[in-house]
């Protein structure tokens, strides 16, 4: 009775995964390399090179890069502050809890929140104008723009970084610092020779994870900038909705390009994470 039971137990999982995760994705991947007649072709991939699509990828990459770098460094600073900064204990747990919430607070509501803050009638805009005489819109700022979107994305990128990197900073053993001190090292020598080399794989890996996270996001952008900022997911959305590109297979190619980028990013993330975990055994 043993052999069948365990395979029966895991079967639903695998059937589900194959039917609703692997096959649909493969279907799209294959479709990217087919034309309407069903023959193998690279013309869809080639067609990705048209200006509007390249522009979409480029904007996506820029937004993802900007928000992931800003989020990563800000998140690292906050993580170091709450773990090593000598702050009261409650700050650390409160920050981690809030980060857990904030990293999930994405999508449409987040866009609303930033519109309420930095939109033309937003609270921050108004306060800056009335209290400090600084009219940011007159100076060219606009929440409905590349930097507005980046600033909004950072709201869930920073918490994600904090949650992931805090364990890595925890892993910096107190004894290392003490050992370095007895061996004559100053604080900056210790950071330069031990801390940074130990932390940077985790850090870089997380930057990449943040990048992939931003690249695939659509709801926030859709709610905030609509189709005025044509990032790849929005392009794909329009294509699925109404075949705006007049070529169904081109849609597959766009999806393929997305998976390629996020997939590659995740491979690098895993590689960096395994490397740092091996050291910190």
């Amino acid at each position, binding site marked *: 009775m043993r052999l069948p039971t365990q395979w029966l137990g895991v079967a*639903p999982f695998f059937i589900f995964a194959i039917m609703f995760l692997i096959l649909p*994705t493969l279907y799209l991947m294959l479709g990217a390399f087919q034309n309407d007649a069903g023959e193998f072709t690279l013309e869809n991939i080639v067609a990705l090179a048209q200006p509007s699509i390249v522009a979409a990828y480029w904007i996506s990459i820029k937004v993802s890069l900007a928000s992931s770098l800003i989020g990563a460094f800000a998140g690292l600073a906050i993580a170091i502050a709450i773990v090593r900064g000598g702050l009261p204990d409650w700050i650390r747990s409160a920050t981690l809890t809030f980060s857990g919430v904030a990293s*999930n607070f994405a*999508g449409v509501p987040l866009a*609303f929140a930033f519109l309420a803050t930095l939109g033309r009638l937003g609270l921050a805009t108004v306060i800056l104008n009335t209290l400090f005489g600084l009219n940011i819109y007159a100076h060219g700022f606009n929440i409905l723009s590349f930097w507005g979107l980046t600033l909004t994305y950072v709201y869930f990128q920073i918490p994600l970084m904090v949650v992931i990197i805090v364990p890595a900073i925890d892993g910096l053993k107190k004894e290392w610092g003490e050992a370095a001190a007895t061996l004559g090292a100053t604080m900056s020598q210790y950071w330069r020779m031990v801390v940074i080399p130990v932390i940077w794989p985790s850090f870089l890996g997380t930057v990449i994870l943040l990048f992939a996270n931003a690249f695939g996001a659509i709801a926030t952008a859709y709610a905030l900038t609509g189709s005025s900022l044509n990032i790849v*997911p929005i392009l794909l*959305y329009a294509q699925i*909705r109404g075949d705006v590109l007049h070529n169904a297979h081109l849609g597959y190619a766009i999806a393929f390009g997305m998976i390629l980028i996020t997939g590659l990013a995740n491979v690098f993330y895993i590689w960096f994470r395994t490397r740092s975990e091996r050291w910190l055994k």
Partner: protein
Amino acid sequence: MKAGRFWAWVVFALGAAYFFIPLIATVEFSMRMRRGAYSFDAYKVVLGDARFQATFGYSVLAAVFTIILGVLIVVPAAYWIRLRLPQLRPIVEFITLLPLVIPAIVIVFGYIRMYGSNSPLPFLATDTGTNALLVIGYATLSLPYMYRAVDTGLRTIDVRTLTEAAQILGAGWGTIVTRVILPNVLIAVLSGAFLTFAIVIGEFTMASLLNRPAFGPYLQNIGANRAYEPAALAIIAFAITWGCMSLIQILSRFAPKSANRPN
């Protein structure tokens, strides 16, 4: 170390400002509906809106089905892999990583193409089928979190030893799963469930592309057409997310803690 502490406070203050100002601004904006005075009018309008109630109810129902589906798929798999099939673990962990790699929009695109009206499994041909497909899509999105929560819970209670102890005492598989494993894993399952709930309530992409009357598309629609209600909705959404996360934290205090080292 004093200089270090000063900068830590500075960083923390800046971070707190960045994260709280939008929340405060949103609350403030949401209360501006009545001209000249702060009020909760926007909230009243939103909560009284029939479409709000309908779409919110739809999403809640979808979330419940998603959680049930997730539990049925994940719990047995996680259990058997821990107990008998450790060699499958790398494959399963890879699979649970996929929804984080493949964006939701690509997944739902795949569904539309594969399960359309003229496919062997025409989910999209009927309303019920499309609703089912949405729940399936949500289950896929929450798979990584559900699996990780259940797997951690199983690891903490040392499933193997519990199962062997129960078997020696004469219990059959049914008894083992329902009276030994499930009660101990319930807390972990609930944690996964609340995270799933938070994900489903706010989800936009899949619901929109499958044309389902869910909460996400409703939010987006309100945002495009109204001024103050979106802010109220954002606060409501944030409160719900906060509530889910807090419940998970509270639950984790009740989780069984193992005296043994987890394997």
